[in-house]
């Protein structure tokens, strides 16, 4: 058979199997295997892009990725991918891959060797360790993040490390900690297959997590009844699929949640038995702390009394009838309700508050802990959970949920790392906004951070208020920016030193998705030129510091911090020629794994992940030697850590009695609201075609053509008043900065009057010159979803994008 026809037959066979599975909700009688394309070898890997954690099969031929297929063995995506998954293989092959270390010389970059580059980095750190910080991301693999954390916390004895995930899910973390005493969702994606009602709180999964959303849409196609409710500030592609679209005024989701809580109490439709047995009530303390103070049920009810449907309507704009509809649903025991949220509630100056309130609605109504009954936050990056939240690459954290502020936790870390007592600092480092503020402030004015090493992220475009947090650093003498990246992002172009990185299947990797699922893959192709693994870069710099005589690079027995042996002989993994002599990922992971048992986040041995398409923690060894994952935490029917005979057990309860906390959080106005001078709300976010700041997706020509530049969505009534039509240039201005960009009216999203939306993917039109860096007091996560702006038609005109 002709090769081409063979490939077509294989593609049709795969699509037919997938269609049958979607239609019937189960595998067809004879599922076939992967298309046996001639000359192509296949292996598994999670997709590079979002936090869903789809598994793909990667086809490699002659050292290049030539084919991608949805992995049928993957529970997350069951063989399906979204349009981003389609081009994930192409993300490797943009023409301007960085392939050599580059050192700034005035306005130019000059290629240098790796040894010189490592020497420069190590010298900067050695001369001023307190002034050095690493800024990473939820795109770090688990071993990479662990290596970075260990270099800083175990080696340098500071906590100057934070990730961009601070900007996307820190409020989800504080929400989980304040409610359950431990981070990450209790439920999992299986809830999407079981729920009767799916509520999306400020969430647009049709564009941002399409494979998860299609799972629900497919249930409907099979005739199942699923009610979809979108609670948001603008109409999106998700809204089109929903039976109910509830539009609220920015920031007032807190009032909406309080309205539901109030009605559950007033009507007596809350789950009294569940609440009495498993919950306590809390409210903010003075001074405010993450744990707050305990209040009784009566006090909780009294505080909520003002949130009548009519009052909530007045605050939020959501009709009293819709508030009652939501309370009706939560008041029913015969329904299963899942809530999803992502950036909407998280990028919020009251992010911790709204996160705890979504949990409160589920706990008070007892919609918790049965398949389909779950409050589940989603993440936007492939390892925001695995690397940031679990490894703990945050300024206050240690691996496995430990924190630097607790002496006991520091001792545990020092013991596992074989460090002298007192090496791990108890003083948390600066959180993201503070870190960059200090980097952008002269040393003699309190700018204590002088060198920042950025890996796997683009802060020049993703930080809020970049005019204040990023740009000044590039003009201050003595501030040195190191950037490890794959492409010349805006941050790389602003750097003093650029280190070329390997990406995705050019290296071994492990990540953790939104549902506690840890995933593994092997290197399949070589990186271009001299691009090298981020974990290697960290270990090689640590070795340089060791050679320079930095005392922190040795454990208490004098061994190198990243010493790795094979057959009793040390392998020089800091020398890239030997980096793949052993599986460094496996070694780092096995070391990290020892931390995960402290907070019941147990991970299985590395080899178990080689066999699986991910496993959801806690993964616990069974008497027969197999490893069992956990789908539903805190529920007796599934979680091995729930005490025998108990239906639920919140075993990390902050009140140490196995109970979860139901919070009262009052509605408070945001720090900046539209006024006569700046009359519009600005909301920022993503679009389907592009991921984050577009450094990968803008290099896919068709995606770039489909969505070539940023725009501002305007409501038609506002556009008419401003005498603006689609394609006209408008000036968008806040108290912090301004931007000229084309208007799009009646486009994909529909903002209500008085609101505008701008996506942040376009490096050439950086909306974060306009945004606000105000942040949540607990999570320190900034609010990208609302600030006040004014809009005017520009004197210049351009064609419509």
């Amino acid at each position: 058979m002709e090769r081409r026809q063979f490939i077509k037959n294989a593609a049709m066979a795969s699509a037919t199997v997938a269609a049958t599975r979607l239609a019937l909700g189960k595998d067809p009688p004879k599922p076939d295997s992967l298309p046996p394309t001639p000359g192509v070898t296949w292996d598994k890997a999670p997709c590079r892009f979002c936090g869903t954690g789809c598994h793909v099969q990667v086809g490699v031929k002659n050292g290049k990725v030539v084919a991608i297929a949805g992995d049928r063995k993957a529970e997350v995506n069951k063989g399906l991918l979204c349009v981003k998954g389609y081009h994930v293989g192409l993300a490797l092959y943009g023409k301007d891959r960085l392939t050599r270390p580059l050192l700034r010389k005035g306005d130019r970059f000059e290629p240098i060797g790796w040894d010189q580059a490592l020497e420069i980095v190590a010298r900067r750190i050695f001369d001023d360790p307190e002034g050095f910080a690493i800024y990473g991301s939820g795109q770090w693999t688990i071993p990479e993040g662990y290596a970075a954390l260990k270099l800083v916390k175990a080696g340098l004895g500071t906590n100057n490390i934070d990730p961009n995930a601070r900007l996307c899910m820190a409020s989800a973390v504080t929400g989980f900690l304040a409610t359950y005493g431990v981070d990450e969702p209790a439920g999992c994606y299986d809830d999407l297959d079981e729920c009767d009602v799916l509520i999306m709180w400020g969430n647009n999964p049709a564009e941002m997590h399409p494979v998860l959303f299609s799972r629900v849409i497919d249930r409907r196609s099979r005739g199942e009844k699923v009610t979809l409710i979108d609670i948001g500030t603008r109409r999106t592609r998700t809204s089109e699929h929903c039976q109910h679209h509830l539009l609220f005024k920015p920031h007032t989701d807190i009032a909406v949640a309080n309205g539901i809580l109030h009605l559950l109490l007033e009507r007596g439709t809350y789950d009294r038995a569940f609440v009495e047995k498993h919950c306590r009530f809390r409210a903010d303390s003075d001074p405010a702390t993450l744990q707050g103070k305990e209040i009784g049920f009566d006090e909780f009810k009294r505080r909520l009394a003002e949130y009548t449907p009519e009052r909530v309507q007045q605050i939020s704009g959501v009709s009293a009838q819709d508030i009652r509809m939501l309370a009706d649903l939560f008041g029913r025991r015969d329904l299963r309700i899942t809530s999803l949220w992502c950036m909407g509630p998280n990028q919020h100056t009251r992010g911790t508050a709204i996160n705890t309130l979504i949990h409160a609605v589920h706990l008070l109504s007892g919609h918790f802990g049965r398949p389909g009954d779950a409050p589940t936050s989603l993440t936007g990056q492939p390892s925001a959970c695995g690397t940031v939240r679990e490894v703990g690459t945050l300024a206050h954290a240690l691996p496995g949920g430990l924190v630097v502020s607790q002496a006991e936790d520091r001792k545990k870390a020092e013991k596992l790392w074989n460090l002298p007592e007192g090496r791990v600092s108890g003083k948390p480092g600066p959180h993201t906004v503070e870190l960059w503020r200090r980097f952008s402030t002269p040393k003699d004015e309190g700018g204590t951070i002088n060198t920042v090493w950025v890996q796997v992220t683009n802060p020049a475009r993703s930080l809020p208020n970049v005019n204040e947090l990023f740009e000044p650093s590039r003009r201050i003498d003595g501030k040195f920016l190191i950037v490890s990246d794959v492409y010349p992002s805006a941050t790389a172009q602003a750097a003093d030193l650029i280190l070329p990185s390997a990406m995705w299947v050019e290296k071994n990797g492990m990540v953790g998705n939104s549902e506690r699922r840890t995933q593994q893959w092997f290197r399949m192709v070589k990186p271009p030129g001299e691009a090298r693994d981020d974990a290697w870069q960290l270990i090689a710099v640590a070795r340089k510091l060791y050679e320079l005589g930095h005392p922190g690079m040795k454990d208490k027995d004098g061994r190198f911090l990243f010493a790795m042996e094979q057959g009793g002989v040390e392998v020089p993994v800091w020398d890239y020629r030997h980096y793949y002599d052993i599986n460094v990922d496996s070694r780092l992971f096995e070391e990290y794994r020892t931390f995960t048992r402290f907070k019941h986040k147990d991970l299985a041995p590395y080899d178990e992940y080689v066999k699986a398409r991910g496993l959801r923690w806690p993964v616990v060894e069974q008497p027969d030697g197999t490893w069992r994952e956990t789908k539903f935490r805190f529920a007796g029917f599934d979680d091995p850590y729930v005490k025998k005979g108990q239906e639920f057990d919140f075993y990390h309860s902050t009140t140490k009695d196995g109970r979860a906390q139901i919070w009262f959080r009052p509605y408070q106005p945001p720090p900046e609201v539209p006024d006569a001078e700046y009359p519009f709300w600005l909301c920022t976010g993503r679009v389907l075609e592009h991921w984050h700041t577009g450094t990968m997706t803008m290099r896919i020509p068709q995606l770039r053509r489909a969505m070539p530049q940023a725009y501002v969505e305007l409501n038609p009534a506002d556009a008419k008043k401003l005498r603006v039509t689609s394609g006209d240039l408008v000036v968008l201005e806040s108290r912090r900065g301004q931007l000229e960009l084309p208007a799009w009216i009646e486009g994909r999203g529909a903002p209500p009057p008085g609101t505008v939306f701008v996506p942040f993917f376009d490096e050439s039109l950086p909306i974060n010159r306009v945004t606000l860096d105000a942040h949540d007091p607990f999570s320190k996560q900034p609010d990208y979803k609302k600030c006040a702006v004014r809009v005017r038609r520009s004197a210049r005109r351009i064609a419509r994008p």
Partner: protein
Amino acid sequence: MAISGLVITLDDDPERRRAALAALRADERLTLGEPTGNHLPLIAETRRAREGVELIEDLFTQPGVRFVDVVSVDMSDELEDGDPASADSVGDPSHEEG
């Protein structure tokens, strides 16, 4: 040439469904399989894999198409033709993106 396997979820409404099927049949880049319920397997052949991305976006906007899932993409022919960009190209920050 890139070959993709896709599954389209068709609308419940018979009229919209018929219109969608007619439009899909008329697109010479597509070969339709046998639908199971609302789910239609098909293969798409495009000159470049990158054009396949655009095609999928177009399918999303087709009346009567509720959702598009990607099952596989094979671009081995395309790579043998010498595209996409060589993995050996040397990048630097002054280099325009490809």
